[in-house]
């Protein structure tokens, strides 16, 4: 042990030149790359400056209307799930797949057009010349037509995705209609177009009902 120490003492000066240059250069570049990776990881936290998200989608449950106040084919506009996301609720008068209520004909969809965000209007059957036999949601900006009888799917026009449906619940004892969630796709402007991550509908505004 002491002889090694002596040798190392004597070689103090020579040690400098005996270092394996290639190994040192290799380690230098590896160390640099390693530091780059580590710092990239740390820089990931700037995502904190991005939009606020809900940790778990906590859908508010709000009462939209009572069935006694609903007239057939007269839409009601209400905000859900945020105070700046309007939706249309309408009693269609004919039974549809996702309708609620005693006649299974009450539906609600987002009012924001999936094309460029204009507000759509409800057009009852017979009021449009293009699709006379269907209830429609019509967007006046670029003439987009959504089929109100069939999940607001696209009939014509530039939009690429159907309107997001509002999940409704009907309380038969009181006649109240509650909005309890949203279905895919995501509301226009909240996320990538057509995305199915509906929790994004809770982003970027204040929840209705003070939530």
């Amino acid at each position, binding site marked *: 042990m002491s002889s090694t120490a002596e040798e190392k003492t004597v070689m103090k000066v020579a040690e400098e030149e005996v*270092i394996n240059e290639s190994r040192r250069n290799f*380690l230098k570049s*590896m160390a640099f790359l390693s530091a780059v*990776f580590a710092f990239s990881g*740390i820089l990931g936290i700037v995502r904190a400056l991005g939009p606020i998200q809900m940790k778990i989608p906590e859908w508010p449950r709000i009462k939209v209307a009572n069935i006694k106040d609903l007239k057939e084919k007269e839409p009601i506009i209400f905000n859900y799930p945020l105070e700046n996301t309007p939706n249309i609720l309408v009693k269609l008068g004919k039974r549809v797949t996702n309708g609620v209520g005693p006649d299974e004909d009450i539906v609600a969809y987002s009012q924001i057009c999936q094309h460029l965000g204009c507000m759509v209007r409800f057009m009852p059957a017979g009021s449009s010349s293009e699709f006379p036999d269907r209830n429609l949601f019509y967007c006046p900006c670029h003439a987009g037509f959504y089929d109100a009888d069939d999940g607001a799917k696209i009939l014509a026009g530039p939009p690429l995705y159907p309107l997001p449906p509002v999940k409704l619940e009907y309380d038969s004892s009181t006649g109240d209609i509650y909005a309890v969630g949203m279905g895919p796709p995501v509301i226009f402007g909240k996320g990538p177009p057509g995305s199915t991550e509906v929790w994004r509908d809770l982003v970027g505004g204040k929840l209705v009902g003070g939530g």
Partner: protein
Amino acid sequence: MDRFQAGVLAILVFQLVVLGYILYLDPILSQNKFAAGLSAELAASALIFYLYKNIREDYDQEWIAAGIAFIALVVLLMIFYVR
């Protein structure tokens, strides 16, 4: 490429894989995995710096073993324990 270089490259590949994994995770639901992954990455970097610092090859084997054990423990925690 000798064993030493292969070992160092393995550590670097490990860092890259962990980096990709933690940047892909959901930034709210899996925050703790992100933290643990970051911890493993920094420890791996520190290990490479230690190898670079003691270039004259008088490494303390204990420290290297401790470093690798720590990284392994953190990775196990990241995958199985933290949410």
